[in-house]
């Protein structure tokens, strides 16, 4: 028997129906967390089981899948999830943002603007933005029901009282369609503006916490702030050392024990695309330098 012991895209059809119904309700109620019967997946909780289940429920043979982990296509989590679906669903995979129809992401939104034919699937560890302020699910659920979000503003205010500015740098709370306060998953707040009025559908899956939520395309997403302390996306004040980009989100890489460091684009596809187009940063290395030298030597 060589027949695979699992269904197309791994999940059985009854599970897919259950997840699909949850996705439809999530889209109908933007920002609201729909409970779903999360399954055990062949990877541990915390490795993206929520995102994987959402992706499995919507993936078809014609899809092209991209998976990123902190912006990178080349890290363990991204590679293993991409391989998982290449094996169980036989879908084409890519690292190019504009070729993908489904992009599963762990904590970044690609730099390249998304389009209407794409679905962005987020892996979410803690879907409840109020959880660290109020541990009881019954209470947070009631707070959402009453749109009682004062506590979240108090938390942001305490940041200002203590640090002089809103110090929350990732998982920065947003209000979706002027109703639900939502956790955008631990994306850097640099990415928050990209969620607003985005042409692509955004789906969020939390496997361990058993929640699915969504932002439909062209939906208002506002980062919470105060009039005198408006929301500001944060970015290291440096160009990318490899491609020179001045507007991308940067990772800080420690290069030695003397305080040496470099800043590079966290979105590897974006960075590689820019380098291929001839953009150079201060630390660009071979093969581009060699090629440039060859070219100048004629």
């Amino acid at each position, binding site marked *: 028997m060589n027949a695979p012991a699992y*269904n*197309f*895209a791994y999940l059985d*059809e*009854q599970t*897919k*129906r*259950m997840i*699909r*119904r*949850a*996705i*439809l*309700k*999530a*889209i*109908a*109620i*933007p920002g*609201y967390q*729909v*409970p779903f019967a999360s399954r055990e997946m062949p990877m541990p909780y915390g490795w993206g089981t929520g995102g994987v289940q959402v992706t499995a*429920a*919507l*993936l*078809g*043979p014609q899809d092209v899948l991209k998976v990123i982990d902190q912006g990178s296509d080349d890290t363990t989590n991204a590679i293993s999830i991409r391989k998982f679906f290449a094996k169980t669903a036989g879908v084409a995979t890519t690292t190019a943002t504009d070729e993908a129809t489904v992009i599963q992401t762990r904590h970044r939104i690609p730099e390249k603007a998304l389009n*209407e034919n794409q679905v962005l699937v987020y892996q979410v560890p803690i879907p409840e933005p109020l959880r660290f302020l109020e541990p009881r699910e019954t209470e947070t*659920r*009631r707070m*959402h*029901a*009453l749109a009682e979000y004062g506590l979240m503003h108090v938390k942001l205010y305490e940041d200002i009282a203590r640090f002089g500015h809103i110090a929350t740098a990732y998982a920065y709370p947003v209000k979706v*369609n002027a*109703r*639900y306060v939502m956790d955008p998953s631990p994306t850097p707040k640099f990415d928050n503006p990209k969620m607003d*009025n985005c*042409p692509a*559908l955004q789906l969020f899956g939390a496997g361990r916490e058993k929640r699915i939520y*969504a*932002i*439909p*395309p*062209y*939906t*208002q997403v506002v980062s919470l702030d105060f009039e005198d302390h408006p929301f500001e996306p944060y970015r290291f004040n440096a160009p990318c050392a490899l491609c020179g980009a001045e507007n991308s989100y940067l990772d800080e890489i420690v290069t030695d024990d003397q305080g040496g460091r470099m800043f590079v684009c966290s979105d590897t596809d974006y960075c590689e695309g820019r380098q291929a187009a001839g953009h150079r940063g201060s630390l660009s290395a071979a093969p581009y330098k060699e090629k440039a030298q060859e070219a100048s030597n004629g």
Partner: protein
Amino acid sequence: MTTIAELPPGFADKVLSAQSTFRSVMDAMARPGSVQQIVPMVGTPGPMMRGTAAIALTLFDHDTPLWLDARMAESSDVTKWLKFHTGAPVVQDASIASFALIGDGDALPSLERFALGTSEYPDRSTTVIIQVDSLNSGRSFELRGPGIGGVATLQASIKPLDLFERLRMNEALFPRGIDVVLVADDAVVAIPRTTRVVSRGI
């Protein structure tokens, strides 16, 4: 009297047909007013349209109580087909239904009779699937809301004629509310509870 052997068929390929149908419905729900096509072929028992049957096979199972309007319920082909292919329990009480199938829009009951969800769990609401005459000709409607960049225009001939007036209750109820899926043969349009519709006349 139809035997099981004579029932209209389900999907030829259960897995991929359900996936393709789901994507059409998901796109419809994500982009209210846009007309999505349901591609897979499926048998059409009694008054059930192709699109409705495909949606039933894609989303219904033993976990989804189902409410049928008189036009659907009185067709033994429909009830047998649903029972055989989906196993979804048919309920008389619309307020506990996950899905409602409406074959005759003129006889659509008051929307308050369906499950509207609760403030804590607004997702526990009925998705009402209404078969309509056309989703590409007829009266013109302007739609706004999440999923729509600016304004979407829908041309449709829908019964009941006052459907969108009745759906205005979603505005006051939100986040509770009713989500509607309109089906005309193989075409699908979704009107989730966030969509605001203005009739522009003929």
